[in-house]
Every structure is written in structure tokens, then in C-alpha cells.
């Protein structure tokens, strides 16, 4: 019998279709798509800068928690009313630029004189935590719904798609406000802050899922038509195998990208809710809440500048990173 091999060794070492500069082509065994994406991402300076800011933020948020609890630095809720102009009655910080000083680098709040820097830091973890958790929730619901709709099709698809329409037709913010207003404040003996965070997470996360759901559904629909799904079926694979082993790994990239881009949206959503007065309870600092308070003192713009900047930088960092990630995972998308 003739050996079925008409292939010489040169075929075996055929160059990968995706080649990268400076990479020896044979050096890496089995470079997966994610590894390639990572290599691409590493070269995207802006995205990496975004990632660094995000990491710094997370560290700062953790530091804020630890410092607040462990070390006795200026607390985010400590009053400094001695620095407030109470005699003149204006209740503005004494001194220029909102009471900026070495001790209070970003100045202090009017009325009670709380340190803005400390509050910005303290606010970071709430913002990030809620945004992260809400994103996780949206992604979970969105993925499950999207995959179900896309994979099963038929009436399941119809129902899920219609319910996504319903969600999209709701004036979300109004709805979220209404919900926050009527939701109980304490549940299962949990403290009000925990409940509040949970509730905000739920509301933000719950209302954002249709967006990711649509994307996942679309992706699933197109993946479902790929022949490798048929290949698996022709090998006798069951539904769950196809779903989890064949489809999901391919959905990870778009989901990841969308999640990174959803986080900034959720940060904005949380701050919007706080701004509208339905966020986390006082005195816990949140950026949106600080902005909302600052809006009452618009004559002292420095007061709204810092939380506004904090939101901006965070959101920007996530957006930059998300953009970079998308480009890295799907270089064609841009």
C-alpha cells in the first residue's frame, strides 16, 4: 500500500496563517487564539495604559478599604467643620480652591468639610464593585438567554427576543428609580449597605442583560450554522456538549469584550442613580452621590470636578482597555 503521506516535512511546518513579528514560528507549540490576542493586546499601548489605570484603581479601592479600616488616616466621613466658614454663614470651605491644602489635597466638601480625596478613594470601591457585579449579572443572564435563544431558536427564541424588546422599550432609569424607591431596605438581616449594593447591582445588572443577550444571540445564531457544530452532532454530541464545549468557548471573546465595555456603562449607570438620589446610603461616598451633592453647590465647581473626573478617568480607562481588547480579539472589527 502506498503510504497516504505525500506530505513532506515542510508541510508539517507550514507557516501559521497568523504570524507575528519577531516570533519564531516553530517556537510556540499550539498558540491559541487567546495567546495571539494577548500578544496583540500587549502591543496596544493605549489599551495597556487603560489596563494600568484600571489596576491602579482597583488597588486604590482596596487600599482605601484597608487604610480606612486599619490605618488611621483621614476618614472619608470625618467632619472638618473647623475649616468651614460657619461664621460668615456661607458654609463654603475656607481658603481658595475649595480648601485645598497639604492635608486635604483636593479640598473639602462644603457644609461638613469632609476630605474630598478620601471620599473619592472611598467611592472608588463602591463604584467598581457595583459595576463589576452588575456586569457579571448582566453577562450571566445575557449569555444564558442569548445562547438559549440562539441555540434553540423557535418559540424559545421568540419569547426571549420579545422580552428583550420589552426591556429595551422601558425607560430604564425611570424604572430603576421606581424600583429602588419601593425595594425594601433590609432583607434577611443584612445591613442596609449590603442590601443596597446588592439591590443596585441587581437593578443595573438586570436591566442591561438584553444588550449582551442580543449580541450573544447573534453570535450563537451564526456559530450554530458553522459546520463544526454539525460535525459534533454527527459524532453524536448532545445539546449540552455542543453548547458548553463547542459554542461557549467561541462566545468567550465577544462576551469578554462586551463585559469590559459594559463595566464603564455600569459605572455611569450607578453614578446616574446616585446622582438622582437613589444610590448607596449616606454617609458612604459614591462618585455619583458626590456629584449630586456638588450640584447643589454649583457655585463651587471644584467640588463637582473631582468626582466627575474620577468617573471620567475610570470609564475612559475601561473603554480604552475594552476597545483594545476588541481589536486584539477581532482585528477586523475596526
Amino acid at each position, binding site marked *: *500500500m*502506498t503510504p*497516504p*503521506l*505525500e*506530505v513532506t*516535512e515542510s*508541510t*508539517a511546518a*507550514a507557516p*501559521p*496563517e*497568523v504570524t507575528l513579528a519577531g516570533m519564531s514560528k516553530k517556537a510556540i*507549540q*499550539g*498558540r*491559541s*487564539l487567546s495567546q495571539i490576542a494577548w500578544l496583540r493586546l500587549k502591543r496596544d499601548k493605549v489599551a495597556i495604559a487603560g489596563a494600568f489605570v484600571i489596576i491602579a484603581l482597583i488597588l486604590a479601592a482596596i487600599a482605601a478599604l484597608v487604610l480606612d479600616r486599619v490605618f488611621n488616616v483621614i476618614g472619608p466621613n470625618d467632619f472638618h467643620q473647623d475649616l468651614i466658614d460657619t461664621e460668615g454663614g456661607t458654609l463654603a470651605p475656607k481658603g481658595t480652591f475649595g480648601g485645598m491644602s497639604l492635608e486635604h489635597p483636593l479640598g473639602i466638601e462644603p457644609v461638613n468639610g469632609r476630605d474630598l480625596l478620601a471620599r473619592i478613594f472611598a467611592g472608588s470601591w463602591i463604584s467598581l464593585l457595583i459595576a463589576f457585579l452588575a456586569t457579571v449579572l448582566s453577562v450571566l443572564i445575557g449569555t444564558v438567554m442569548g445562547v438559549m435563544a440562539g441555540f434553540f431558536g423557535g418559540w424559545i427564541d421568540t419569547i426571549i427576543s420579545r422580552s428583550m424588546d420589552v426591556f429595551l422599550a422601558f425607560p430604564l432609569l425611570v424604572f430603576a428609580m421606581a424600583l429602588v424607591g419601593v425595594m425594601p431596605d433590609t432583607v434577611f438581616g443584612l445591613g442596609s449597605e449590603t442590601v443596597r449594593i446588592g439591590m443596585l447591582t441587581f437593578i443595573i445588572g438586570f436591566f442591561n442583560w438584553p444588550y449582551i443577550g442580543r449580541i450573544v444571540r447573534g453570535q450563537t445564531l451564526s456559530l450554530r450554522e*458553522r*459546520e*463544526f457544530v*454539525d*460535525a*459534533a*452532532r*454527527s*459524532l*453524536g*454530541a*448532545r445539546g449540552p*456538549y455542543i453548547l458548553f464545549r*463547542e459554542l461557549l*468557548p*467561541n462566545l*468567550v471573546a465577544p462576551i469578554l469584550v462586551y463585559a469590559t465595555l459594559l463595566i464603564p456603562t455600569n459605572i455611569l449607570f450607578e453614578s446616574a442613580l446616585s446622582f438622582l438620589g437613589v444610590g448607596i446610603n449616606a454617609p458612604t461616598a459614591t462618585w455619583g452621590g458626590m456629584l449630586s451633592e456638588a450640584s447643589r453647590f454649583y457655585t463651587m465647581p471644584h467640588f463637582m470636578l473631582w468626582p466627575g473626573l474620577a468617573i471620567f478617568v475610570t470609564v475612559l480607562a475601561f473603554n480604552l482597555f475594552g476597545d483594545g481588547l476588541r481589536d486584539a480579539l477581532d482585528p477586523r472589527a475596526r
Partner: protein
Amino acid sequence: MSIENGDAVSAQTETQPVEAKRTDEALLSVEGLTKHFPIRKGLLQRQVGAVQAVDGLTFDVKKGETLSLVGESGCGKTTTGRLLTRLLEPTAGKVIFDGKDISHLSVGKMRPLRRDIQMIFQDPYSSLNPRHTVGTIVGAPFKLQKVKTEHGVKRAVQDLLALVGLSPEHYNRYPHEFSGGQRQRIGIARTLALRPKLIVADEPVSALDVSIQAQVVNLLEDLQTEFDLTYVMIAHDLSVVRHVSDRVAVMYLGKIMEIADRTALYERPMHPYTVALLSAVPIPDTSRRGNRERIRLQGDVPSPVNPPSGCRFRTRCWKAQEICKVEEPPLAELAPGHRAACHFPENTDKLTIDPTGASHS
């Protein structure tokens, strides 16, 4: 070499009556196979029509032979392939594999049979999951069918890779690192893992360059010999089909127009459609330019949603007459082992005409 076996089978074909084979030798036997895709509309998803993708196919595939399905785009080749592998459930008709009617088997009942029927896909890019390593892809059949291998799955996969001409080191690589031809080999390795009896190959080489195409065609032939495989080969390139098949079925708009032994079909095509198809194939020979007798079909294939009445080919057939409109010609055996569905078949006088229009060299 490999082809003797096939020739032997086709030689048999010519000497034995069809009925006899159907009972004892057919590995796969298809009767009145039909698939209509419903077209639904509106809120209530009412069915307003159907794409008659495949309409009443009847044929047998004998053990060890290669049967090819050819036809223009949209004539239902892929659908047939998917029906045979039961990726689709037929609307009507029967698929009998190895004596067992699998037409309406449930997914669970079908699972053990999947070892015996495998499929090679057309698109080497979409048929491999980009997130899986070659090892995972080729190992999937073992996993899915819970097959124990002697030296472990990895070893088995590496053997398969070697078999299809890939290096066993490729085990941990991802599909995107391979060229189209190599991917197709990976797909073939996966197909072979369970040592199937029947392989349905849906345009296995259409997406490949000529040079690679030849490699894969040779590989498929070699494997057929080695493992005693039976192929149902779907293709539209008539030259390739002639090279690989023992018997050929020509499809048009969901129906078989003509089915015959390779030589018979290429040398004495009976159905006008087959004649036209053959004469449309460009020949890489400049000397034949101009002196080749061509039959040029006019227009396009009608929609399978409402195919023409009577003979489906009549709208483009130069021989069509009133009867073709009214009466559907049966797929009749006009010569031993040679069936055609035409009211006015060609080459019935057994005159040998070179379909390429040139004198025989």
C-alpha cells in the same frame, strides 16, 4: 492499487440485476427520500410554502463503492448528505443503513450508529472549532462515543494525524495555524477516528486549490482502500467526480435526473441535463478550442419553492415538449444499471459519443 477494488464493484454492477444487489449488498439504501423546508410567515408562523430541497430520491450505495452526487448549486446535494447522516430528519422516505431504517431514529438511538456513518465537511475553516486544539478535535469522537483506545486517546489521535499526513506534533496546535488543505486533513482524521463504514463527504475538496485538492483526493482514495470505506461523495466538479467515483448520480432541483456507472454516465449520458453539464466543463486543452460541440443551457435553475411541473428540467431543456410539462418522467432503467428520468433520453442507441465533443484519443 487502491482503485481495483472499486472497479471490481462497478464491474459487478454491470452484470448483476439491480434488485438483487439492493437486498444483499447495499450498505445504504435510500427510498423516496424527501426533505421540504417549510417557509413560515407571520406572527403565528403559519407555513406558507416549502423549499422542496430534496424530493423523492431513491438510490443504493454498495459496500466499498463511491457514489457521487453532482449538480448545480442549490440542487439539494448538501441536504441529501445531511439526510443520510441524519443531521436532518427526512420529511418523507426512508434511509436504510446496514439494513436498519434510520430515517426517524431519535438522537439517542442514532448515537451508536454515528460511529458507522461519518461526514466530511466542505468548508475546512468552519468545520473545525477554532477554540479547540487539534488533539481535542480529533479526539472528540472517542470522547463522545466513549470509545476506549488501547494506548490512550492521545496516542490514537496522533496515529490518526499520521494517517492523514500530518505530524503527530500538531496535537497541541490550533486550527488557525494550518492551511486549508491541512485543515481538511484534520477533518478527515476526525472522521476516521471511529472507523466508520460510510463516509458522506460534502464537497471535500471544493474549497481547496488544485494542487492541494489532488493531495486530498489521493488521500481519500488511499483511505478507502485501507479501511474498506464506502463513500457518498458530493461534488460539483465533474472532472473530480469522474476521478473518484464508481457511480454517479446527477441531481437537478432536488431530484435525481440520472444515475449510472461512472463510465456509462460520462461516455453515454442519457439525460439532456447531464449532456449539457458535461459539455459545459472547460477542458484544459487549447487544441479543442472552437471545434468542440457545445450545448449551452439558457437561464438559471428555477426556484425549489415552486419547481416546474412535470419534468423539472424542461424549462431549460432544448428537447422539451408538451409532455414534459404534464408528466414527470420516471427514473427508469434505460440500460443495465443506468437510470435516467427523461422522456427523450439521449444515447439510447448505445452510440458512443465523446461528451467532450472531441474525438477519442
